[in-house]
């Protein structure tokens, strides 16, 4: 400073004094205001009383004095008047000077910049939070979709257990299903003496036996390309040539009958081997689905009735087939003729026994 010419020093002093509206307080050892000067009115300090404690008149001075480390600087303090000041405290013998330098413009500039920066950071933080939330939501959605598709597959496989696949497809397309099939073979099979024996062994054993029998019937259906249509008590109804026509339906069902008889032979029911009565007849039928909520795919027609009658007339362990079925069977099956028999509602019927 010494080296500056007097004119320059004077100019700098005036410039700084005016630009920063310098004001000062002089504080004595009792922490009372000893003097004030400069632009005190600029900071709303005109009413400060000389000789009174500074902290009682300027709340922000509370706790600051005595200050062990002077000079002490606090930047950009907004005063109750709304002015922003840089505050400087420095010591001079027994007095402390408190200097006010206006920093309102600087504060406002900093505030504009900081506002933009913080708003940007907040936006980024919020975006990250929302992205995390989105990811969680997506994951939950994916899981529920997976669950839904599992449920769908379960429903699908349940439907397929009840109905042949092609019928199930058409049913889903809301089609009415009633089809004529000119050439099919129908089989009925039941367990000899089932009712009496069921009574003697109880429900649990009976159910286990039925389960065993019907499972065998299901398994063989798959193997020989037949359809198990339904069970009635201990009786199972199976058809070949449905829903897709096949010329060897009688042969397929004959193989099916032989295997079914063999499959249950080793299982015992109430101490005796299981024996079946099996009847087969071939001819035209009508197949369709009835019911809306509990679907039942079923067959109707004389062919079905006669097949049932033939089965009822069969001896234990016998596979009894109609003349129509025998004619369809190839030379592989040398059938034994049976005496013509009167069947209820049909008259005398020519039937054959399928050999072992």
């Amino acid at each position, binding site marked *: 400073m010494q080296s500056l010419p007097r004119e320059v020093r004077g100019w700098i002093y005036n410039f700084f004094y005016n630009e920063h509206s310098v004001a000062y307080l002089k504080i004595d050892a009792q922490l009372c205001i000893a003097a004030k000067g400069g632009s005190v009115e600029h900071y709303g300090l005109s009413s400060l009383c000389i000789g009174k404690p500074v*902290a009682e008149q300027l709340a922000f001075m509370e*706790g*600051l004095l005595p200050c062990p480390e002077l000079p002490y600087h606090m*930047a950009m303090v*907004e005063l109750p008047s709304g002015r922003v000041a840089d505050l400087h405290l420095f010591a001079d013998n027994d007095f402390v000077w408190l200097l006010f330098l206006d920093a309102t413009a600087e504060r406002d500039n900093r505030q504009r910049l900081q*506002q933009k920066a913080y708003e940007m950071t907040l936006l980024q*933080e919020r975006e990250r*939070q929302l992205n995390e939330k989105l990811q969680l939501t997506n994951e939950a959605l994916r899981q529920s979709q997976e669950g839904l598709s599992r449920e769908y597959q379960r429903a699908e496989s349940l439907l397929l257990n009840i109905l042949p696949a092609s019928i199930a497809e058409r049913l889903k397309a809301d089609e009415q299903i009633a089809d004529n099939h000119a050439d099919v073979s129908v089989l009925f099979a039941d367990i000899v003496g089932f009712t009496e024996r069921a009574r003697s062994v109880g429900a649990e054993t009976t159910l286990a036996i039925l389960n065993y029998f019907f499972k065998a019937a299901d398994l063989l259906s798959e193997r020989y390309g037949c359809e198990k249509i339904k069970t009635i008590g201990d009786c199972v109804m199976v058809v070949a040539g449905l829903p897709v026509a096949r010329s060897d339906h009688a042969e397929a069902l004959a193989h099916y009958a032989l295997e079914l008889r063999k499959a249950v032979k080793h299982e015992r029911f109430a101490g005796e081997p299981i024996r079946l009565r099996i009847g087969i007849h071939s001819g035209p039928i009508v197949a369709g689905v009835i019911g809306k909520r509990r679907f039942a795919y079923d067959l109707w027609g004389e062919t079905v009735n006669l097949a049932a009658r033939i089965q009822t007339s069969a001896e234990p362990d016998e596979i009894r087939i109609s003349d129509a079925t025998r004619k369809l069977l190839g030379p592989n099956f040398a059938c034994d003729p049976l005496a013509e028999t009167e069947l209820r509602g049909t008259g005398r019927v020519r039937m054959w026994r399928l050999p072992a």
Partner: protein
Amino acid sequence: MQKKICMLGGFAVGKTSLVRRFVQSIFSETYLTTVGVKIDKKSVAFPDKTVDLILWDLAGEDDIGSFRVSYVRGASGLVLVVDGTRAATLAVALTLRERAEAEFGPMPFVLLFNKSDLADRWAIPDSEINELRQLGWQIYLTSALSGEHVDDAFRQLASMVTK
């Protein structure tokens, strides 16, 4: 009797809004960042005494390194403010307290989890808050927007700094 209290916390946690709610009973949705410090005053009356709280609303920092601890000189207590929707602001508030106490020694404080009205964006698990309560800390879930628990928190601190 008057006591200097400093508001400490990360930026945009609601320090200025809490002071405005407490002193003027108003709230503004508009975010306005604080630069430097703004000083307010509010009297809290108890049956046996009245305390004037001199509230130093310090600028919240983005970067803790730039925190000017000198503002805290002469303070009798701290209000630590956390934004309940931004989990990272808890660590900021606790670090600022450490900085202040390293310089000026331990002092009473209350810990405020602010913005409790934003329940669907809340990011601090109850278990974490309960753990801090286990330390014997005075903790409040506040909303400068609704005013919930704001007066309670300041009153509590006023009673702690005059004990």
